């Protein structure tokens, strides 16, 4: 039996159309003459790429798309057959396996070869080797922007200067050469202004998770909310429009005391558990995974995954007055570029501020950047907040690592634990 189509809100439809247009722009590059870059989500320089009329293709997003279309499993196996280890990130293998299977974009047309690999190297080691692997295949120019890790819990002037210097001396001249377009800093300022506007609206939406009932799901719904701003649309008027529309939708749910809309088309109002979630979601069984939460009455009120492309809720905004410096600060401040104690601080703060019942960690086999140290994060957040934590394990796009029964069991025991904790607190009062 085929699954019923997910019910979508207007903002989701708008986003779908934006993504489709971007895929069309990518796959029609040979007709339009536009240049295409491949780049990563965290620390992406979308506004800068726009200054050179370069279309932005994001292999991580393509892997997600393949995961949701249930195509990723084959791609991964294909990559493993050709010598890639079963141990490494499945986004990489999905991308590489897809290449060997004709490299077809979601619009059914083949992906053209990128003209440039924009390696903004923020918060994840794998990025560096992933693009070395792609460079081996495409033999195209690769621009490396090394973003230092905030090991001591903060950025320094040296880190910022280093990034700005790389932007000025490596990235911008490189993009000029690839595109043949001269860099115009005022154009960048204009895009950054649009980014900041959209970022304001995104933050407003994310913060509505503090309300009861929460009008958003900040994890499963959240991945849609962050879509445009984390990918090829930050800095565009489309994104400004999208976030305006999203804000109106959330506002209307707030006014009506409604929860978020589930894919089944019902408003999820009966919210029993409020969770903070750490780690990326699983994509191969995304809807099934989501359903396990709302079926049990669990809503996610804040998540760290919605911060991988920037911690806007902690005050960062792209700043047209200091364009390059602000791009540097943006890259430095992405979630996986923060050290572990800072991540603990942030998650504990979310538990308190969003009045959550606890922290749930979805640990991703693929992703050392997120996962190494998560057990300690859980213990620390539990200790600091006095709220119980829970740990589940899945993968991003490798269906072999999604065990529905296992995940469901763990979630159910977690909810029981929360109940017990509540009753204990009740008795003590």
């Amino acid at each position, binding site marked *: 039996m085929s699954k019923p189509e997910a019910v979508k809100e207007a903002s989701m439809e708008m986003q779908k159309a934006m993504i489709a247009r971007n895929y069309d722009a990518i796959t029609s590059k040979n007709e339009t003459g536009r240049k295409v870059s491949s780049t990563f989500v965290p620390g992406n320089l979308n506004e800068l790429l726009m200054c050179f009329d370069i279309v932005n293709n994001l292999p991580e997003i393509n892997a997600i798309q393949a995961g949701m279309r249930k195509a990723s499993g084959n791609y991964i196996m294909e990559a493993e057959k*050709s010598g890639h280890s079963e141990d490494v990130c499945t986004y990489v293998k999905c991308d590489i396996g897809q290449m060997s299977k004709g490299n077809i974009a979601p619009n059914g047309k083949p992906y053209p070869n990128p003209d440039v690999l924009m390696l903004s190297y923020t918060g994840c080691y794998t990025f560096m080797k992933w693009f070395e692997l792609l460079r081996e295949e495409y033999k195209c120019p690769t621009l490396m922007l090394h973003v230092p890790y905030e090991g001591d819990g903060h950025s320094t002037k040296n880190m910022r200067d280093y990034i700005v210097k790389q932007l000025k001396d490596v990235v911008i001249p490189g993009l000029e050469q690839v595109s043949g377009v001269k860099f115009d800093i005022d154009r960048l300022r204009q895009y950054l202004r649009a980014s900041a506007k959209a970022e304001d609206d995104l933050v407003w939406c994310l913060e509505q998770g503090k309300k009861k009932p929460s009008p958003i799901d900040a994890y499963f719904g959240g991945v849609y909310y962050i879509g445009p701003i984390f990918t090829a649309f930050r800095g565009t008027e489309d994104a400004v429009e999208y976030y305006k529309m999203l804000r109106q939708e959330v506002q209307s749910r707030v006014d009506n005391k409604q929860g978020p809309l589930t894919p089944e088309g019902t408003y999820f109002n009966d919210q029993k558990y409020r969770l903070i979630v750490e780690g990326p979601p699983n994509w191969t069984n995304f809807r099934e995974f989501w359903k396990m939460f709302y079926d049990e009455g669990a809503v996610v009120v804040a998540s760290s995954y919605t911060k991988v492309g920037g911690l806007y809720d902690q005050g960062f905004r792209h700043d047209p007055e200091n364009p390059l410096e602000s791009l540097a600060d943006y890259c430095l401040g992405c979630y996986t570029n923060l050290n572990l104690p800072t991540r603990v601080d942030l998650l504990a703060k979310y538990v308190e501020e969003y009045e959550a019942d606890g922290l749930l960690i979805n640990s991703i086999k693929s992703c050392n950047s997120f996962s190494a140290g998560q*057990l300690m994060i859980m213990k620390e957040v539990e200790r600091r907040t006095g709220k119980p934590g829970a740990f589940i394990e899945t993968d991003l796009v490798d269906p072999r690592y999604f065990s529905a029964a296992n995940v469901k069991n763990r979630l159910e025991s977690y909810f029981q634990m929360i109940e017990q904790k509540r009753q204990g607190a009740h008795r003590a009062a």
Partner: protein
Amino acid sequence: MSVADIVSRCEQMYEDLDFSYARKWKAAQAGRKVVGFLPVYVPLEMIHAAGCLPLGIFGGGDSMEVIHGDAYYQSYICRIPRSTIELGVTKRLDFVDGMLFPFVCDVIRNLSGMWKIMFPNVWTKFFDTPQNFDPAIGGTYYVQELQELREGLEHLTGRKISDDDIRRSTRLYNENRNLVRQVYALRAKEPWKCPTSEVYVLMRAGLMMDVEEHNQMLKDYMAAASAEDRPKRDNVRIAIFGSFCEQPPLNLIKSIEMAGCYVVDDDYAVVNRFLTVDVPTDGNPLEALALTYCTHSVETSCKYVPVEEDKGKFHIAAVKASGAEGVIYATPSFCDPALLDRPMVCHRLSDAGIPYIAFKYAENSGQMQPIREQAGTFADSIKLWS
């Protein structure tokens, strides 16, 4: 001193997970500090210039039972962070005053933050090295990072580190690197005289002891090994790559040799070979370190290779220089850097007509039979086809 004496002393140090040498070194003089470092690379001369003992922490090997460490990591994370945590929570590192976690991968990176939470009284620093190797860009950044390292060490010890202090230490480490290279060259020339099982512990012990003492030891070893009459076997000559971080157990290193392979080059615990030339000792010592890093350091998986054509060149040159006939790409399980790099490096080896095999290990791997068989078959095939 005989080879046997030197090797047995090194083995003892290598096996000693209570780090008695470092404890004694610290106790010998009031105010002495020990600074631990993890793989792959930190500038040891900076620690030395601060008057501290740099102590290489390479996990727990195969003799330590990991009880607590496993509670910190999922099954799909390599072993070195969990055994390092085990060393910490079992108080085997309770005398260590500072810990440096260099950039290798996201696991060690995140471990630096865990250490901050678990051991708040230890000065813990994530030590970053640039991935941009232009001296004017990455070099400038690195000089400032070294300056911050210097200030951190000054804070730890309560004494200033002068430029001359760093120059003096750099000289000693230049000598060390030179001697290490000589040992490697001797092994490449006459591998039957310097088996890798010996060279390996000699280097590992060196990363736990005073550099001057190690320099003397390297000289003594070369003199003693050259003088010994050891039979030459009909072994093939191979290079090992991929083993720069979590270390294989000594038994595995021995098994490869016993399977008929002379290891003539390797990247085991590569820190003392990371810089491939002398660091200049005139001028600004931090600039000298930065420049050498940018222009003369090994290609290893924790570094970006900026130019496509250069990928794997280092490995091929190392194979040629050491006269290796094949490569064993031996990586820790779940090691992203080594495993993501493996297909690329192996493609280049293939293109250059260099045979290779690949396998994975863990620092506590116990089953040597499959490794012996694989390495033995590889050796036979090289003999047959070369």
